[in-house]
């Protein structure tokens, strides 16, 4: 008997004001190619996203490899094994290069991967150094599909793969490659849950499911896939990825740095800093740029909203990539500059306070932003209305620092 890779039990899921799934059960076993069929809006993507732990459950629970991963009581636990996921939106950040992105996905499974043969299978090897945002829609979709397949491709043990409309935008050759890889991976014991209207993909299904009944499909007699890559110990993947996101877009400079420089410039535009009334005002003027920089927030939060990348990361674990430490760097630089301009020297105490203030403010703003992540239009919400909460702590720190 094959291992149960995914078990959805007695689940009720609501989207908007409607109940999409009610008392819903589904099991995916190793070796299954379970294709969900149904009209638009019938709930296919809801099943995929429920399996990926992205949707809150009203009732029931979801398990991966027999271990609870999500429960209606709010428990949301990391899966014991990485799983593949391709969302309907690609879930990839446009500023990443193809090879960096695929390497990161492989690293989440603890594997170093030569991705060139995989890219060749989709006629994408000449694009490996390109930024994903520069690819066509179909090419970017190929990368999103490979993203979903890689955890199974690098694993010798059964792995769950969730693919939501993987064929959307793919050419015939790419669909043939995808079908070849799915059947081969399933033959090696990996389990697939796929939402698709495509007749070619439905034709390889070992099980066809229409959200109420499951019928047997065709047997899979493909040659089993051999796991790729070499095992490595993943280290600080979220930290490294967060900083790569921030540095590849220069968003730390563009978002945080510019704002701090603007604040410093505006203060200097008021006149000679030597004429500031008291030490308190001078200290405030020195620390204000770092504080303003922190209020902009972690630049990766903004980047992760592209193509639902944040949801892809949330599905993989509890945390998302963050540019931890960027606030320390930016805060140090702007406070050094502000201290030199205002005092004619670099006050080390103020630089340390500015760096810490920038980092902590950035983290707090990131937390506020994360709290609206589930909304369907998170960018439209006025979360920054709550930022004045930071003014009092800032004022207290400034008055304390002025007495040092």
């Amino acid at each position: 008997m094959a291992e149960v890779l995914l078990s959805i039990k007695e689940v009720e899921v609501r989207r908007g004001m409607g109940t999409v799934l009610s008392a819903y059960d589904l099991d995916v076993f190793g070796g299954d190619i379970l294709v969900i069929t149904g009209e638009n809006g019938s709930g296919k993507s809801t099943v995929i996203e429920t399996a990926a732990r992205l949707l809150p459950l009203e009732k029931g629970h979801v398990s991966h490899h027999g271990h609870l991963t999500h429960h209606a009581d709010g428990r949301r636990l990391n899966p014991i094994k990485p799983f593949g996921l391709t969302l309907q939106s690609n879930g990839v950040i446009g500023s990443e290069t193809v090879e960096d992105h695929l390497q990161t996905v492989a690293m989440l499974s603890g594997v170093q991967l030569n991705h060139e043969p995989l890219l060749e299978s989709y006629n994408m090897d000449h694009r490996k150094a390109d930024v994903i945002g520069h690819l066509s829609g179909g090419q970017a979709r190929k990368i999103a599909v490979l993203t979903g397949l890689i955890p199974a491709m690098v694993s010798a043990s059964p792995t769950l793969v969730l693919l939501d409309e993987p064929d959307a935008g793919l050419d015939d050759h790419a669909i043939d490659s995808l079908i070849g890889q799915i059947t081969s991976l399933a033959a090696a014991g990996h389990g697939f849950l796929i939402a698709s209207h495509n007749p070619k993909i439905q034709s390889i299904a070992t099980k066809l499911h229409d959200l109420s009944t499951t019928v047997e499909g065709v047997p899979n007699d493909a040659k089993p896939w051999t796991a790729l890559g070499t095992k490595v110990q993943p280290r600080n993947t979220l930290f490294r990825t967060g900083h790569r996101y921030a540095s590849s877009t220069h968003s730390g400079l563009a978002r945080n740095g510019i704002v701090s420089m603007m604040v410093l410039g505006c203060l200097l535009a008021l006149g000679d800093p030597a004429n500031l009334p008291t030490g308190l005002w001078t200290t405030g003027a020195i620390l204000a740029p770092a504080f303003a920089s922190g209020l902009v927030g972690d630049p990766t939060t903004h980047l992760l909203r592209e193509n639902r990348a944040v949801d892809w990361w949330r599905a993989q674990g509890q945390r998302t990539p963050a540019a931890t430490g960027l606030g320390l760097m930016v805060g140090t630089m702007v406070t050094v500059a502000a201290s030199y301009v205002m005092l004619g020297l670099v006050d080390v105490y103020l630089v340390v306070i500015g760096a810490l203030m920038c980092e902590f403010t950035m983290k707090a703003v990131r937390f506020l932003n994360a709290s609206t992540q589930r909304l369907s239009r998170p960018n439209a919400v006025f979360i920054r209305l709550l930022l004045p909460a930071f003014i009092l702590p800032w004022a207290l720190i400034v008055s304390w620092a002025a007495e040092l």
Partner: protein
Amino acid sequence: MAGRRAEAFLGLGFLGIMTTLYLGFQWAPSVAIDAFESPAAQRIFYWHVPAAWAAFIAFAVLFAGSMMWFFKRSPLGWRLHVAGAEAGLACGLITVWSGCVWGAAEWGTPWDWTDVRLNTFGLLTLLALFLVLGRQSQPDGVETRDTFSTFGLYGFILVPFTYIATRIWEIRHPGPVVAAGDDGGSLSGDMTVVLLIGALSFTIFIIGHILMSMRITGLEQRLEQAQNHIDGGN
């Protein structure tokens, strides 16, 4: 019938609020000339204090509604949440505005970012503004309701914090004049009467506001259901 009741409460409350304004400015006795920098401005308290009282009632309704939605998925809870946020915003803005008027006359500055009471109450009003504007920016659904209910639940922490703020850190905002404990109050009998009329009027007004808001939210929900029905959804 429920609609008429809301309008009656609103009308009665409005009348009372206007009466309070008149009594506060024309009838209530003046405070001692040396008690404040700007003794005449003190009369705005007859609006300021009852408005803050009503805002706290609204925030309590917001909290209760958020709990009912979050833990029980109660549609009534969501309507209370919406009504509490809107009423809290209305009364919060009146409180902040009247406080700023008094602060400008008494302290020479309308706002002090280092005063804890001012900060926590200002933040509560901003939270209500966030909830009102945020709800309008999002399609109605469990995701929207869950997120804003969470803010309603955690935001309520600010209410007791605001209440005790002047007892622990009296920086600029004056300490309590009603229910002041061992320190005793500083109000004369006539002042207390005007203040009580104000509190009662604002309470009646806020009840009308909440009833009206719940009625409008209920109608919005019915409209959405009718639209979904026309679209062929459930």
